[in-house]
């Protein structure tokens, strides 16, 4: 007594949390104390005394001082101890069976059941009644259903929300595994049916919920207190939900029972409790704990119930949860789902009705529901386009009202939902199908640049991954419109937002360029039209003022034009191969006209590339020229080459890689020497040779470049070529090589020139005489003699190899 007094006196000086701790510790200690004696009595079979101690122990739960969390702690502590009593009582049955006659045994449990009801205090009385009741069911000395019914009725005596909730939780826990169900031991011999168990659980659940709802925070008191109470209440929701979940675990729960008994009763309770927290939580429970099959027949009712909930309940979350569940259900099913009803229609109509009924619902919630609906339709009716179209139409309508153009959606959550609406169809359908929805592209316009780019990339990736075939102009145009953000960057009136990283940009453009390869059509004319469309769109996109002068323009232009150029060149090639006349008389008139058309287009495109990347332009001109030549369009080829040289002269002469450019030019020109008429050819060849001399700074480069140009004048290849010019070039090379001051280099160049001369001589070109070679060999020999030490081994080897080659292929040459 005195110790208690001192505790209570000292309590007031503690903080509320500390007080709680002290109170909890004291209660636990007292409970442990009683538990000890209870167990001792049980060990010596003094059941009556044990019950007395048990009752005292449970008496600790009568406290009204502990917070819900601490009360739970205490409850668990006592719960553990009560397990001893439970197992003793279960064991008692067997013990009695051995010791006493059948009759006595039957009386024993019912007597005990009566006996515990003499306790004067209701809470310990009911805890013991439940404990004994559970053992009573276990003994099967009375029908389980009767005992359950009695227990759930008697527990009504505890109306205190917290204490009642825990008592009923105890009831649920103790009977969880003792409920009559199909073909289980508790249903036998009139023990009860699944329906009886359902009745019991529903009754308990209803009462629990009523108690839980009653734990309203006080009307007065600070906001903080209210919040804390609310949180405490939320913490307890699991107790209610757990009880409800027990129904879902009954084997005997059928669809019919669910629809006719369980569902209506639960809904009744949810709706009538009029409490926001409870309604939100329990609706979610219902959606989650019952099998998908059960939801199908009750979808309408469930959605209807949603309209009857108190204002403020997050209906959207409930519905989305349900839709998601059913979507997953459909995705788990193999093959078609054998259900008559049109699940989508049911949802769609109910959701529409709900939106009508709840106009205050915000746009985000509406969007989220539509997203869920879309997922549902895609899972259940993967081939149905009408549903998706309807949804997109509706959403567009919604957004147009909310964000009249040119407003864009900025709320990140809303944006996420719009993105989902756009990307979900891509998961199921070909991008072209997605684009065919009337409002698909419209929806994109509500997004800002970066999001538009993202979805455009999604679309591109999907198209590439699926190998989508674009064969229709309208399709292509809608696709190009959709990928406009990638193609043309942000619109003029909006900021670019985050800087696009170079690697990202390159990646995007690379994907964009793939569109060209997706185009396919049997008719080359049509195909060309597609390519032209791409180029034209690209041109238009890139001609926007704000884009013209940015650093990214080069990458963008290349992405659009380069693939187009190559495809068209390939078309030209293919045309020549298939349509060339067998007599070798060159292209027919019709083909010539078409070919010209193709190359004109190429010419224009390459010119466009050349404006931003002359080096690439040069290469493309050469490539185009080469193709034209191969296809028999010599004049066109010459034009291309001329254009390449113009480009070289204007843009590349100052470039550090002139050498490479010149090599390419001369290579291509040489390659085409036969295809181009001589009056066009010679100026080109001369120009190339001249450039080699003038534009290169290093002697070895000059030398080698001119050496290469000699081939341009090789009369064996082109009748119009002038062998004299070839010799001139060779002499120029020798002069430059001789001027070369770099040690060892002149020797190397001499050998290279020699190799070239031998080549001409072996070919019996009039350009090179035997004397010329002999004197060159003599010159080299002198040089080798001067400089054996420092001479490069490789050079000497090359020299020897050249000599032996010459010897093998020539006769009567005096070395």
């Amino acid at each position, binding site marked *: 007594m005195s110790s208690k007094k001192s505790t209570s006196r000292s309590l007031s000086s503690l903080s509320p949390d500390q007080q709680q701790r002290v109170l909890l510790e004291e209660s636990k200690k007292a409970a442990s104390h009683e538990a000890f004696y209870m167990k001792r009595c049980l060990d010596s079979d003094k059941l009556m005394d044990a019950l007395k101690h048990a009752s005292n122990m449970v008496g600790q739960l*009568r406290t009204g001082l502990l917070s819900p969390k601490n009360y739970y702690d205490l409850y668990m502590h006592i719960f553990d101890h009560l397990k001893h009593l439970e197992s003793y009582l279960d064991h008692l049955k067997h013990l009695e069976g051995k010791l006493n006659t059948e009759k006595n045994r039957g009386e024993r449990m019912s007597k005990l059941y*009566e006996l515990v*009801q*003499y306790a*004067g*205090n*209701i*809470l310990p*009385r009911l805890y013991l009644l439940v404990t004994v009741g559970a053992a009573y069911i276990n003994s099967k000395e009375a029908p389980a259903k009767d005992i359950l019914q009695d227990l759930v*009725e*008697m527990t*009504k*005596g*505890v*109306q*205190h*929300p917290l*204490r*009642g909730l825990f008592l009923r939780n105890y009831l649920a826990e103790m009977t969880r595994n003792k409920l009559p169900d199909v073909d289980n031991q508790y249903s036998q011999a009139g023990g009860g049916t699944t329906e009886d168990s359902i009745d019991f659980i529903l009754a308990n659940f209803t009462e629990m919920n*009523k108690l839980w709802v*009653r734990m309203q925070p006080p009307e007065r008191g600070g906001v903080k207190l209210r919040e804390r109470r609310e949180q405490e209440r939320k913490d307890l929701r699991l107790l209610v939900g757990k009880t409800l979940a027990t129904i879902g675990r009954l084997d005997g729960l059928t669809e019919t029972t669910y629809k006719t008994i369980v569902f209506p009763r639960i809904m009744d309770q949810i709706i009538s409790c009029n409490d926001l927290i409870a309604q939100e939580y329990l609706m979610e429970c219902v959606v989650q704990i019952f099998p998908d099959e059960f939801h199908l027949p009750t979808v309408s009712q469930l959605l209807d119930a949603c309209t009857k909930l108190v204002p403020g309940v997050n209906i959207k979350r409930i519905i989305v949860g349900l839709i998601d569940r059913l979507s997953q259900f459909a995705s788990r099913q193999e093959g078609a789902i054998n259900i008559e009803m049109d699940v989508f229609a049911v949802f769609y109509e109910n959701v529409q009705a709900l939106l009508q009924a709840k106009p205050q619902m915000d746009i985000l919630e509406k969007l989220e529901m539509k997203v869920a609906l879309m997922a549902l339709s895609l899972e259940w009716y993967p081939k149905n386009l009408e549903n998706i179209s309807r949804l997109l139409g509706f959403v567009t309508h919604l957004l147009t009202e909310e964000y009249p153009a040119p407003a864009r959606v900025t709320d990140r959550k809303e944006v996420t939902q719009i993105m989902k609406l756009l990307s979900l169809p891509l998961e199921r359908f070909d991008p072209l199908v997605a684009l065919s929805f009337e409002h698909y592209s419209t929806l994109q316009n509500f997004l800002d640049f970066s999001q538009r780019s993202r979805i455009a990339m999604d679309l591109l990736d999907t198209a590439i991954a699926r190998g989508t075939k674009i064969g229709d102009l309208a399709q292509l145009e809608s696709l190009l419109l959709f990928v406009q953000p990638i193609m043309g960057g942000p619109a003029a009136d909006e900021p670019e937002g985050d800087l696009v990283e170079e690697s990202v940009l390159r990646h995007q453009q690379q994907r964009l360029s793939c569109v060209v390869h997706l185009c396919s059509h049997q008719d080359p004319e049509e195909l060309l039209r597609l390519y032209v469309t791409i180029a034209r769109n690209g041109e238009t996109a890139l001609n926007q003022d704000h884009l013209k002068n940015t650093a990214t323009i080069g990458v963008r232009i290349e992405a659009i034009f380069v693939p187009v150029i190559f495809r068209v060149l390939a078309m030209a090639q293919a045309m020549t191969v298939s349509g060339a006349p067998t007599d070798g008389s060159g292209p027919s008139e019709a083909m010539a006209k078409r070919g010209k058309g193709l190359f004109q287009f190429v010419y224009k495109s390459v010119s466009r590339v050349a404006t931003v990347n002359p080096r690439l332009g040069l290469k493309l001109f050469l490539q185009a020229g080469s193709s034209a030549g191969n296809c028999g369009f010599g004049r066109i080829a010459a034009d291309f080459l001329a254009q390449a040289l113009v480009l070289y002269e204007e843009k590349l002469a100052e470039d550090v890689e002139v050498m490479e450019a010149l090599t390419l030019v001369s290579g291509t020109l040489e390659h085409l020497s036969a295809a181009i008429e001589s009056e066009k050819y010679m100026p080109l060849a001369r120009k190339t040779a001249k450039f080699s001399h003038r534009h290169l700074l290093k002697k070895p480069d000059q030398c080698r470049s001119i050496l290469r140009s000699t081939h341009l004048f090789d009369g064996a290849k082109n009748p119009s070529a002038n062998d004299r010019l070839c010799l001139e070039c060779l002499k120029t090379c020798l002069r430059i090589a001789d001027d070369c001051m770099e040690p060892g280099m002149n020797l190397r160049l001499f050998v290279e020139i020699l190799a070239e001369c031998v080549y001409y001589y072996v070919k019996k070109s009039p350009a090179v005489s035997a004397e010329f070679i002999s004197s060159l060999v003599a010159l080299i020999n002198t040089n080798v003699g001067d400089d054996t030490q420092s001479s490069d081994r490789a050079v000497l080897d090359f020299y020897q190899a050249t000599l032996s080659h010459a010897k093998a292929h020539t006769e009567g040459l005096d070395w």
Partner: protein
Amino acid sequence: ESNNSLIVGRNQRAEASRPTMAFLFGPRCEVGIQFDKAEKRKKVEVPKTSSTKEFLYLFHGKENVKGKVVVRPKSRIEHKGIKISLLGVIEMVYDTGTPFEFVTVDVDLSPPGVLETDTEFPFDFVKVNKKYESYMGINVQCRYFLRFDIEVKNSLANVRKELGFWVHNYQVVPEINSGIKMEVGIEDCLHIEFEYNRSKYHLKDVVIGKIFFLLVRIKIKHMELSLIKRETTGRGPSQFNENETVIKYEIMDGAPVKGECVPVRLFLCGFDLTPTYRSVQKKFSVKYYLNLVLVDEEQRRYFKQQEITLWRKK
């Protein structure tokens, strides 16, 4: 406690008188009164003093009281006659006057003569209607006993031996036994309707009932059902009422809301109860009341008493 001690006080007075007589005149003989087949008869535990108890044989009201008296004279006793009486008396604790004898049956066992050897006197009280049950209350007692008397010649001290026994009367199942249903309340504050399944309960019965809450505007902390035993003695201005709560049983914890219904189940069997006695010889009554008590958070008590009849079932 204090009431108990009063009863004891009276007993002590009775006890004290006999040894004194014995001391003056010395015991002349040993007397024992035995009931037939006593070993098979049920006994009732009755408090004798504050700390001791005695066990009395139990008879039913219409049962014959049969047995024998064994007398072992220590010396020769010349007597004027031997008799045995069955008495039923009602004694008031505060009334020091002679007890009211409502049953007196004398039976002569022997004409005047001499007792020299051990002698047995069989007796058999047939058809003595022991209408009232034995009862030991706070202010009143109803008791039965046998009194054996030897009127000794030439002596002031007669031989007297008394033996109490206990009487129960079984009652027939009541023909009319409707439930009790009643709506009570405090205006705009609390309205409840309670319902007990019967108005008459036997002593091993169970009170089953329900409390409906029709209106709750006070903060109820708990509700209990108690059984009050009211013993009424005397009449008119000298009437005494003793109320004793024999059962106190919590039936609800916490505050209910409108529409709640709380079950009542009270097993009477475990408590020491008597049947209802109504105006026993116009001397006393014992009545029982179910008292429904609601306690609010300020410890205010709201209650409603309802009489129930208790009866003894065979």
